[in-house]
């Protein structure tokens, strides 16, 4: 168990290294393009181009360039955006991480809790109108695009019904730091959390129901019935427990991707300066250092989330431990 854990972490570090090399090569060693010109941005003066060349070591062998880049990102943290006139990239990305994490973690809590409730309730009442209603609601949740839902939420809570008792508590759009104003942090995020989680509640609720219903067909459920256990216990301790593997797999992938910037649409709609928004802005004005850093950050997060999922597997499924 300990050995497989260490092995898994080592594997993760190796994959991260591989990704960093690949991302670096894509941005800096693409044939026929001068990385200095791209970093310097459109219509850059020759002096700036020269400064970029010197700063990134483009006159040196490629591995030195790679090491310089990694040093700038991970060690000294002084990677500079030339497009945005001397913006320090690493602190800029670091500033956006808490925003995205607050948004995604909050939504994740919501979607896990409600998906579990819906999945279990639907599986327990399978075939009845309760099950059908829940699954229909889930399908509606999946079908609503997040940018549309977000705008509708804004329309209701910020303008149409803002002055009614229902939405008068909703603060203006934007993000408040948790350390400065915990209450404001919570209130500004409630609506984004709900908006982001609805899709996943529907998706996960449906997936979980299907997994539980499938588990209920297994022979060991018949054994559990023959043991004289209650239906609740059979559902929760036997069917649900063996269905969690599918749930956790999906969660790892979605959570990693969202933290890595896929919550972009939600961030844009609610005016949250998160990683997705930062990447989006950087893409608009081709700010290579920022793109490089956020892409690295995002892929690292996906890899790390997958490693966590694999470790959770070991806890959930004894058959994986020895393998």
């Amino acid at each position, binding site marked *: 168990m300990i050995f497989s854990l260490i092995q898994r972490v080592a594997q993760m570090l190796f994959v991260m290294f591989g990704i960093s090399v690949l991302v670096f090569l894509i941005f800096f060693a693409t044939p026929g393009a001068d990385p200095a010109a791209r970093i310097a941005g459109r219509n850059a003066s020759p002096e700036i181009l020269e400064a970029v060349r010197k700063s990134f070591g483009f006159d040196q062998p490629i591995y030195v360039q790679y090491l310089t880049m990694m040093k700038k990102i991970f060690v000294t943290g002084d990677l500079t955006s030339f497009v945005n006139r001397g913006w320090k990239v690493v602190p800029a990305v670091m500033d956006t991480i808490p925003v995205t994490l607050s948004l995604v973690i909050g939504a994740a809590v919501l979607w896990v809790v409600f998906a579990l409730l819906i999945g279990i309730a639907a599986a327990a009442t399978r*075939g009845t109108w309760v099950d059908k209603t829940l699954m229909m609601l889930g399908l509606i949740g999946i079908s609503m695009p997040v940018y549309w839902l977000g705008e509708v939420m804004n329309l209701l809570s910020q303008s149409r019904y803002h002055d009614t008792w229902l939405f008068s508590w909703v603060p203006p759009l934007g993000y408040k730091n948790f350390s400065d104003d915990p209450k404001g942090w919570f209130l500004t995020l409630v609506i984004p959390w709900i908006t982001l989680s609805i899709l996943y509640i529907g998706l996960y609720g449906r997936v979980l129901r299907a997994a539980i219903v499938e588990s209920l067909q*297994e*022979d060991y459920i018949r054994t559990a*019935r*023959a043991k004289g256990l*209650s239906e609740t216990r059979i559902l929760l301790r036997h069917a649900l427990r*063996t269905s969690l593997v599918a749930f956790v797999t999906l969660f790892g992938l979605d959570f990693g991707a969202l933290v890595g910037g896929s919550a972009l649409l939600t961030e844009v709609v609610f005016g949250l300066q998160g990683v997705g928004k930062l990447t989006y802005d950087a893409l608009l004005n081709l700010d290579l250092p920022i793109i490089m850093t956020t892409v690295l950050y995002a892929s690292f997060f996906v890899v790390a989330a997958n490693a966590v999922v694999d470790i959770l597997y070991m806890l959930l499924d004894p058959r994986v431990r020895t393998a």
Partner: protein
Amino acid sequence: MLKVRDLSVAFRTEQGMVQAVDHVSFDVGEGELLGVVGESGSGKTVSLLAVMGLITDPNAVITGSIQYRGRELVGLKPRDMRALRGKEIAMIFQDPMTALTPVYTIGWQIAEQVLAHQKMSKAAAWQRAIDLLAEVNIPNPQEAVHRYPHQLSGGMRQRVVIAMALSCNPALLVADEPTTALDVTVQAQILDLLRKLRRNHGSAIVFITHDMGVMAEIADRMLVMYAGRVVERGKKEELFLAPLHPYTRALLDSIPPLTGVKPKRLRAIPGTPPNLLNRPPGCAFAPRCIERFEKCSAEPALGSGNHTAACFHVSA
């Protein structure tokens, strides 16, 4: 102790009713081992699942009477059935590879059943699990309780399933082809084990199988089922030495004799069992029977004696 009368189980399907079990009656005495034989689809498993109250299909229609020690089980409240199941009536399943929940240790799974029916501490239940594993001859039980099902062989898993079934000292044990999925040497060990446990616990056992050899080993009395009906019942010796029903005779002809002249080829029974959906009237075995005559187009009834068969050759 178990009195089954006119038990019928039918499943509603889109094509109509499938009569899986058709007016089956039998008794099991205290401490007795009743063998139920028949080919696949003859209704042997379904009738015993009905006894266990384990038919969960909402399309199943169960009629008749199942009395366990004077208590009627058909139509019993699920809650009361649950209290009985696993405690007084336990079941061993055919495929030990899939009968255990993969994510829990075997000790946990045995203790779970003990705790569901008896008031005792978790530590005591755990100790009980260790004792049970020792009883079913699992080597090193203190260590084995921490094993997961996937770490055990098929034979070992079947022992665990048996240990679990025995955990509350059931008065009646239903064993549904417990040796079918195992290889022959392990089969013999499991049969030995069941015999030993029967001596020690005095449980009555209903043993379902399609293996006449296994029956010859362990049964006291036997029930031969065909197409959802009982076609012959009697003591094991009577059934093996003087079978009444042509189907029983055909079954016996299809296993090699231990003594005497070995036939060049074993006799197989031609044809297949009838479709249980809209079965034709008359004796269900008639189309495959070499002894059929005019009367067979009517439905033969099972006699009332101890050794009797549902065949016009017998009653006529």
